[in-house]
């Protein structure tokens, strides 16, 4: 066969892959095969960046949901500032990039055989595998908090029905009720998330149910953007929002879902609405693949995001132990692009280059009051470390116009990142 003819066939296979479906695509594709498991900010970004880096790579994205529901800005949905539909995105444009989408769950991974088993028993073989499974809840790690308990005391830490359940509970609560948020110990998805949620619920109560009270019971003594949040709370929600740190009895040791009671070492709090943000771990498939360590998260190489435990498997997004990088959507997208470039280099026989990554996280403390944290990261001594002198939080003395500008930028960021990943 001539080179030209072979190239022509390759091009033909690439162009028709998504139309013919996974079986024909697998049979025909002759380029390197990369399977990506998980279609969130990390996985969908990585799949698209792989095709962009090298169109010869046959990319399969394994994702059971037809619609992705984004977590950033879901706190605004909880308090009625936004509808859940504004959080939802489909995979049509991802597929249009020539990515084969397997609408199913990955149930097992055989690392030595380089194969992924799907829910129907079918197997996908790969040259490189990227896992982007996000988080799973550690059911039972907080005594009393199992899956059934989340119907009474929603976690709302994966956006969707849980988000709407917490919203309904807040809407139907009588004025004067006690709302409690339980915040977990580190590490967990979206470090400033519990405090943005507390801020927006406080805003909701202040405007709609002003006799109510919000208690944040925290398993920590310190949290992301703490000084900025606390200054804003003192200004906007005095007497309404109380934060109880670990050292003052904030650690929730068990819950009683039937009565919405949260138990701490210092006493019991019976809530009208209780939002329990429970301990978390890497999404289930990471454990099945053998890429989690005893922490439940995934140690990775900071240049390639390849697992330190299983060669040929890369882990990105919330599931990864990414050193100084937080578990955020921005970080996931940033990691996905670096990982895609590294995987494209590796399957093409090249050498991955040393990356530099960025994170920016906005939080709303009121609808028109935004604050942010930013960071720049690079591999240092086998970890992703902060570039010294860079990053940090919004200035504590910024004028109100700057807070307004950051609230506008927060929404612009959401439109941009979701446009980039799903649009």
């Amino acid at each position, binding site marked *: 066969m001539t080179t030209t003819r072979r190239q022509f066939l390759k091009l033909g296979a690439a162009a028709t892959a998504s139309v013919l479906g996974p079986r024909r695509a697998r049979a025909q594709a002759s380029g390197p095969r990369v399977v990506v498991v998980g279609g969130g900010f990390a996985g969908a970004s990585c799949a698209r*960046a792989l095709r962009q*880096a090298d169109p010869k790579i046959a990319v399969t994205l394994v994702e059971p949901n037809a619609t992705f529901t984004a977590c950033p800005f879901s706190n605004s949905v909880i308090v009625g500032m936004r509808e859940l539909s504004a959080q939802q995105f489909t995979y049509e444009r991802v597929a249009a990039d020539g990515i084969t989408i397997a609408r199913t769950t990955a149930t097992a991974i055989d690392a030595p055989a380089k194969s992924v088993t799907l829910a129907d028993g079918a197997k996908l073989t790969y040259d490189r595998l990227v896992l982007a499974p996000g988080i799973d809840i550690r059911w039972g790690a907080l005594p009393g908090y199992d899956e059934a308990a989340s119907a009474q005391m929603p976690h709302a830490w994966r956006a969707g029905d849980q988000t709407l359940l917490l919203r309904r509970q807040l809407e139907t609560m009588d004025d004067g009720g006690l709302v409690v948020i339980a915040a977990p110990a580190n590490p967990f998805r979206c470090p400033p998330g519990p405090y943005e949620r507390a801020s927006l619920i406080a805003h909701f109560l202040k405007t709609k149910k002003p006799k109510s009270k919000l208690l944040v019971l925290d398993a920590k003594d310190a949290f992301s953007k703490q000084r900025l949040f606390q200054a804003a709370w003192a200004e906007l929600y005095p007497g309404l929002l109380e934060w109880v740190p670990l050292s003052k009895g904030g650690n929730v040791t068990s819950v009683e879902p039937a009565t919405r009671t949260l138990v701490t070492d210092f006493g019991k709090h019976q809530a009208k609405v209780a939002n329990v943000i429970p301990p978390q771990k890497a999404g289930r498939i990471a454990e099945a693949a053998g890429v989690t360590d005893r922490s439940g998260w995934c140690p990775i190489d900071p240049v390639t995001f390849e697992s330190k435990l299983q060669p040929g498997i890369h882990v990105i997004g919330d599931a990864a132990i990414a050193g100084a990088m937080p578990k955020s959507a*921005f970080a996931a*997208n*940033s990691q996905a*692009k*670096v990982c895609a*470039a590294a995987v494209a280099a590796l399957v093409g026989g090249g050498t991955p*280059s*040393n*990356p*530099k*990554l*960025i994170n*920016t996280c906005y939080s709303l403390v009121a609808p028109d009051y935004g604050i*942010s944290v*930013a*960071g*720049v990261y*690079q591999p240092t001594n086998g970890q992703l470390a902060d*570039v010294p*002198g*860079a*990053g*940090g939080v*919004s200035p504590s003395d910024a004028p109100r116009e*700057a807070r307004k*500008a*950051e609230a*506008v*930028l927060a929404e*612009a*960021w959401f*439109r*941009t*990142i979701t*446009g*980039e990943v799903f*649009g």
Partner: protein
Amino acid sequence: MRRVVAAAIGLASIAAAAVVAAEPPAGAAACSGCHPGSPRVTSPVVRLAGRDRDQIIKAMQDFRSGARAGTVMDRIAKGFTDAEIQAIAAWYASQK
């Protein structure tokens, strides 16, 4: 001899252009988290693709030194060296 040198320079610049157009340099891929690449996205944040190279370099250097006030760019620019800024600016300038 002169002709050989000229030809070599010609080849070198073609090679350099090819490098610029290929893989984004360290840090460049992260910019599109906020700076839209897709024409379908509306945002007050400036687009970088096709922007003048020297303009990008000056903006980054001014954010880094504090000569220009930023919301987050002042904090992010401090994480990049002159060489990295130049590579990122050249790469974005070469994008359509």
